[in-house]
């Protein structure tokens, strides 16, 4: 069997180049198809990565722990004790890379001239930095010094809306667990800039202890956010945290906390695959055509091989092998082209022209295509598997030729 495969390997390769024009046109088509598959997948992956990362920044963390009612009723009433016992131990073990216990309550912030509804975050700045949820860029002043900091850090856009600035005093109002208005004057110690104006207008940072004091909730917090720095595999480890947290708390991964982001991630792979299959299908007509013609031109020869004692299976294998060569050459060229065209773009494509449209989807102003071996492997699998499936029909016809008829074909 090995001998016969070796025999047809050479034969299939030479046959491929008998009609080199046809082979080259087909090769070009496969190359363009494969390039398009990988290029599109890289763009989509880049987009999703960025959307999810942006989303996780404001979520924040890949997993959050809450009082079971907090998500329905985001009030300080539904607070939780800070992590202790088994939960604390679970949070300090890998894969958890960092965690932050925070107070997150709706509030109203008022300057001398304006007031706005915001979300007040009482955080421990060090922990917040560790989970990557601290503001990326402080444009004036500083970020919070520690959890006892009595100042506030607000977004640049919010400062503009409130007609206030660094060093000015504002009043922050929320409610305590007894539904009384809790308010406090505070100085703006920092102004941050975020990717989206929406974020800047929504989140106000204060020292955790100072916020807890104002709300009169002691050491209690409203959420614990944690990260393992790998958002694609959260599903693998979060159940352990859930077990450690016990029944009294709700532990959810980001895919459920923000179903839009979760859906995006699920859609991305699906869309990439659908795109690849569609591109392949439009290629397949040409591929089948090439093989049908190749077989048609060689009917006599196939008859001869049958007469020489080649089993039908070997004839089938020969046509499939010819197709496989073509596919593999196209894959090789397509992959090389894809890498060559995506690498220079990885520094980012400026899409600020459609920035606000992209912001609707949760994207920034630069698109970073993400070349991934997974996409390359997926396109290779699609092309090879579907390619061979498409080649089976012409190959089967070749194998089933009646040798007597084939030999007499003029």
């Amino acid at each position, binding site marked *: *069997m*090995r*001998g*016969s495969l*070796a*025999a047809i390997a*050479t*034969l299939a390769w*030479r*046959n491929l180049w*008998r009609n080199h024009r046809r082979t080259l046109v087909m090769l070009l088509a496969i190359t363009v198809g494969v390039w398009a598959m990988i290029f599109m997948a890289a763009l989509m992956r880049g987009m999703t990565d960025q959307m999810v990362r942006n989303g996780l920044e404001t979520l924040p963390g890949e997993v959050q722990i809450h009082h079971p009612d907090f998500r329905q009723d985001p009030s300080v009433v539904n607070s939780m004790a800070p992590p202790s016992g088994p939960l604390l131990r679970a949070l300090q073990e890998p894969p958890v890379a960092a965690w932050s216990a925070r107070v997150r309550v709706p509030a109203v912030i008022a300057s001398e001239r304006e007031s706005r509804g915001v979300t007040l975050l009482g955080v421990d700045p060090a922990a917040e930095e560790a989970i990557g949820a601290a503001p990326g860029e402080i444009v004036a002043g500083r970020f919070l010094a520690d959890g006892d900091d009595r100042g506030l850090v607000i977004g640049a856009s919010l400062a503009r809306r409130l007609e206030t600035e660094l060093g000015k005093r504002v009043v922050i109002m929320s409610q305590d667990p007894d539904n009384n208005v809790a308010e406090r004057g505070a100085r703006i110690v920092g102004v941050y800039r975020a990717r989206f104006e929406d974020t800047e207008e929504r989140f106000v940072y204060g020292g955790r202890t100072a916020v807890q004091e104002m709300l009169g909730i002691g050491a209690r917090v409203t959420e614990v956010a944690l990260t393992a720095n790998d958002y694609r595999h959260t599903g693998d480890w979060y159940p352990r945290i859930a077990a450690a947290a016990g029944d009294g708390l709700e532990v959810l991964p980001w895919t459920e906390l923000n179903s839009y982001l979760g859906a995006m991630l699920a859609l991305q792979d699906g869309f990439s695959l659908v795109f690849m299959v569609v591109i392949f299908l439009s290629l397949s007509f040409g591929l089948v055509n090439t093989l049908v013609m190749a077989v048609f031109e060689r009917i*006599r*020869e196939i008859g*001869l*091989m*049958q*007469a*020489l*004692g*080649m*089993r*039908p*299976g*070997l004839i089938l294998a020969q046509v499939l092998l010819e197709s496989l060569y073509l596919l593999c050459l196209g894959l090789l060229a397509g992959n090389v082209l894809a890498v060559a065209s995506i690498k220079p773009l990885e520094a980012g494509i400026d899409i600020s022209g459609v920035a606000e449209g992209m912001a609707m989807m949760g994207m920034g102003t630069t698109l970073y295509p993400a070349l991934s071996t997974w996409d390359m492997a997926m396109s290779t699998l699609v092309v090879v598997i579907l390619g061979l499936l498409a080649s089976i029909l012409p190959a089967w016809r070749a194998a089933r030729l009646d*040798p*007597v008829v084939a*030999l007499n074909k003029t």
Partner: protein
Amino acid sequence: MSAIVCRDLCRTYHQGEAVITALDHVSLEMDEGAFACLSGPSGSGKTTLLNVMGGLDTPDSGEIEVAGRRVDQLSRSERADMRLHTIGFVFQSYNLIPVLSARENVEFVMQVQGVPARQRRALADQVLAEVGLAGMEDRRPGELSGGQQQRVAVARAIASKPALVLADEPTANLDTRSAAQLMDLFVALNRDRGVTFVLSTHDVRVMGYARRLIRMRDGRIVGDEQQEPHPMKVE
């Protein structure tokens, strides 16, 4: 032992409305080492009989035995294996795979048989020399004359040491000189290697080489005689 036994073979073809009787109750026995010629006008059933003997075609009824095996009872793949190991074919034309060189064409069958590369190559060069093509091993079929191509086909047929070589009008596309050379080659191989040869032809000069002459008409054997070979004289 008989190389070939045919009993009451029938084979009809449908060509549009018409029914063509290619074999009409043909019975025949061929000894090992025979050198036989099937002759008759075109359409007399020579090619069909050869194809049935080689397992390329199957009879509608009747039995056919080659080297002791019932060919008509074999599957497609088993018949392919039988051709691979026990039968060599030489056709009128288009005998060679165009993308392979003369040597590779000869090696091809052996490679499918699983003969090791070194042995295969040595054997291929040897038989090519034997058919008078030494030095032309690397030429592709397009670079060989018709007679040379037929000799490559003969080299391929005998390289795998078949018990039986079936040749369908092997000289039809050759000039007289090439035809004579090819027939001399057949005779020599039959004599020296003991290979059984069955040829079909309607060329009287080719019939002269045979020791047994079988005449066919309308799918029937109308004459079967032993004869003293009388090769043609070519200058």
